[in-house]
């Protein structure tokens, strides 16, 4: 009888539902974690809670009516999306943009990129248990919101760009505020580095955690700072320069290992590079029109299509527009960077600790409504 006895197979896999309301899931992300003790066996992100049908709306609204939607796809880089959509339509319809408007758009987009990275910086460190840096970051971010509020009248959903330019010219006060903000942010770097970058607890929570290898990044279509952290200097602003980005001297920061610490370092360095772009743009800002007065009121691009890629705060974003010659797009597809950036987590989270999952999730910097669209 003894040989018939079999060891009972003990199933000790425990399923934990992380989110969708958990503060560190940044938006409405839900991750189903299968746990073996403290270790993650399988992670299954569940998205779609914030699906609003932006792509359908893109087909149902005139091109101009779709502008306010853009800032709501990724609410943290609203200006950059707005900018990208206008560029896509301008390319499709062949609308010219005055030089001054180009520079104003670049300045505002880079300010927006810094504000997005600052918010990420604050919330990420707060996820890891540090509350003070959060207040520092939000204090600085508030300055940017004031500057953008001045020109666009809005703090988050800007809708500032129009086909052929921007809604409103910038005044000397805007330029003053921007220049002094850059100076102020530079003076803050030592504080940030002393508080966070050199913090032993922070380094232990991030070094060698959530490593994304270049091959994994390619397989999952990871772009943006997360890709650059694994050592690939790929930035749409450099690879397909749009607007006037080819006139500025800036570096593409890269990491070496692709762990959470590298992603942190790349983003912090990127803020400094954005400051450099803003400074150069302020110096070169030409006089002239802020909007092309001849731009058609009702935009009707000729038949055809355009795939326009640009670099948002989270990575390569693209609008794919198909026009049938009418005022409505036949198809409006948005390629969002967070899609690949989040999908790669299914692979990265395997075999890590639950506590590290929070660190990894934060370091990857996803905006869920962008995925849900």
């Amino acid at each position, binding site marked *: 009888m003894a040989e018939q006895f079999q060891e009972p197979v003990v199933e000790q896999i425990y399923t934990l539902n992380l989110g969708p309301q958990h503060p560190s899931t940044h938006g409405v992300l839900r991750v189903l974690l299968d746990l073996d003790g403290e270790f993650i066996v399988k992670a299954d992100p569940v*998205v779609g809670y914030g699906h609003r049908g932006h792509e*359908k709306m893109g087909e149902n609204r005139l091109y101009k009516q779709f502008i306010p939607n853009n800032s709501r796809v990724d609410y943290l880089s609203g200006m950059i999306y707005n900018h990208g959509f206008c560029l896509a339509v301008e390319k499709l319809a062949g609308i010219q943009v005055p030089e001054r408007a180009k520079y104003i758009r670049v300045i505002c987009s880079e300010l927006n990129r810094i504000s997005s990275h600052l918010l990420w910086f604050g919330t990420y460190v707060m996820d890891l248990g540090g509350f003070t840096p959060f207040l520092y970051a939000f204090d600085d971010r508030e300055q940017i919101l004031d500057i953008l509020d001045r020109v666009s009248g809005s703090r988050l959903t800007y809708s500032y760009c129009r086909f052929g330019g921007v809604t409103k010219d910038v005044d000397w006060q805007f330029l003053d505020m921007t220049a002094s903000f850059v100076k102020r942010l530079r003076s803050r770097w030592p504080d940030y580095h002393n508080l966070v970058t050199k913090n032993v607890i922070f380094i232990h929570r991030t070094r060698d955690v959530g490593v994304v290898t270049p091959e994994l990044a390619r397989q999952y279509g990871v772009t943006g700072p997360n890709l650059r952290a694994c050592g690939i200097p790929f930035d749409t602003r450099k*690879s397909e320069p749009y607007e006037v980005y080819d006139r500025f001297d800036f570096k593409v920061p890269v990491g070496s290992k692709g762990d959470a610490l590298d992603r942190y370092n790349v983003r912090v360095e990127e803020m400094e590079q954005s400051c450099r772009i803003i400074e150069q743009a302020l110096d070169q800002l030409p006089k002239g029109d802020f909007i092309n007065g001849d731009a058609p009121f009702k935009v009707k691009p000729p038949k055809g299509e355009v*795939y326009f890629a640009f670099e948002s705060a989270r990575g390569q974003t693209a609008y*794919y527009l198909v026009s049938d010659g009418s005022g409505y797009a036949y198809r409006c597809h948005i390629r969002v960077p967070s899609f690949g950036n989040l999908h790669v987590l299914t692979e990265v989270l395997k075999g890590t600790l639950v506590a590290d999952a929070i660190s990894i999730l934060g370091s990857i910097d996803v905006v869920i409504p962008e995925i849900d669209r």
Partner: protein
Amino acid sequence: MAKKDEIVQKLRTMLPEDAVSADEAYKAGVVFSVRVPLAKLRDAASAFNEAGFYLESITGLDFKDTAELVYHFNCYEPKSRIAVRVLCGHDQTPKTLVDIFASAEWQEREVRDFFGIRFADNPDMRPLLLPEDADYHPLQKTFGIVHAYHTREEIYG
């Protein structure tokens, strides 16, 4: 040799003469546009994978006479995006690319959500963005408010 030229050479041997069209001016945001028959899609994708490209986006287009899948591949070199266009009849099922590009899994689920195109052999075809019990496909031109429903000829003709 740049990766984009390498892959185009390879695709030219694999496909009929007029399948590859170049867009030197980058007018539509792609450097080459390749028409691939449904049966050769996986071969083309494998070639892209071997050449070191990544799958940037999968999306669909709905026409009266047919549906069309548009795959955008890109590599980490300047201006190298290549579009692969696959005609896929309303009743046809394309093969999945999941085992070639991992990122295809979610993107195919999204296309399934929006256009109702099922991908054969994708291990996980649950709705991604729509509710779990959704039985509608919002980007089909027969759903909701639609301003125009064309044949493919009328736009690309």
